[in-house]
């Protein structure tokens, strides 16, 4: 009987721990993905040696609209220094994403994941979420949401990652 309860407790604990540990954290290696882009399929490992600002966005997400001009600006400002802004769209229907892109043009790499496999592997908790990935593939910074007063902090993170 005692053993039964002990086993039960271990099972419950393992479940709880499993849930909390299941997230991309700073210092870990960013999970690999292979997604279709606007022209060809793109893998995370294709960006080895570049600093990647990976942004998960959806057409129905309000703050994502605000983040697009800013991400264009970051790509334009730090592209030559080795930054690659990569937007991963998580809409189930790509038509919705295309309509969004007509009114909010993106001058950075766009990938499409209608299955939700990539946000799942990154354990995304909110829209938008950005993951800053270093040239060696380790996660440097994770940020949920996008507010006006967070721009400076996010840019500072990018600058730090690029050692500027």
């Amino acid at each position, binding site marked *: 009987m005692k053993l039964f309860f002990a086993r039960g407790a271990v099972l419950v604990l393992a479940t709880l721990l499993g849930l909390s540990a299941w997230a991309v954290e700073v210092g870990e290696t960013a999970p690999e993905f292979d997604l279709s882009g606007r022209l060809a399929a793109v893998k995370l490992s294709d960006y080895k040696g570049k600093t990647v600002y990976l942004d998960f966005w959806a057409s129905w997400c309000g703050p994502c609209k605000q983040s697009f001009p800013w991400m264009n600006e970051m790509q334009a400002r730090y592209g030559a220094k080795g930054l690659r802004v990569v937007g991963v769209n998580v809409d189930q229907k790509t038509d919705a994403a295309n309509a969004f892109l007509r009114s909010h043009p993106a001058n950075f790499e766009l990938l499409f994941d209608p299955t*939700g496999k990539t*946000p799942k592997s990154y354990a995304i908790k909110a829209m938008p979420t950005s993951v800053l990935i270093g040239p060696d593939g380790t996660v440097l910074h994770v940020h949920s949401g996008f507010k006006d007063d967070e721009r400076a902090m996010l840019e500072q993170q990018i600058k730090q990652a690029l050692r500027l």
Partner: protein
Amino acid sequence: MKNKAMGLLMLALLPWLGACSSPGQVHAWEKGKLAKPGMAFDGDPLDLRFVQHIYTSKENSSGGQGVGGGGCGCN
């Protein structure tokens, strides 16, 4: 005998409880439909304010709707 039949019936109905279980977690990237304006609890913000004003006037109190008030019914 009756008790036994009742017990069996209960046992047979037990799987129905499964219908009460949660259909699983809705992930952050699956909330497209939930993000539609029609899914909001309060549709029109102006209309909501109006309804709240009438309500608090009728109840002769204010506050409790996220607005400060002493309950004197004067605002």
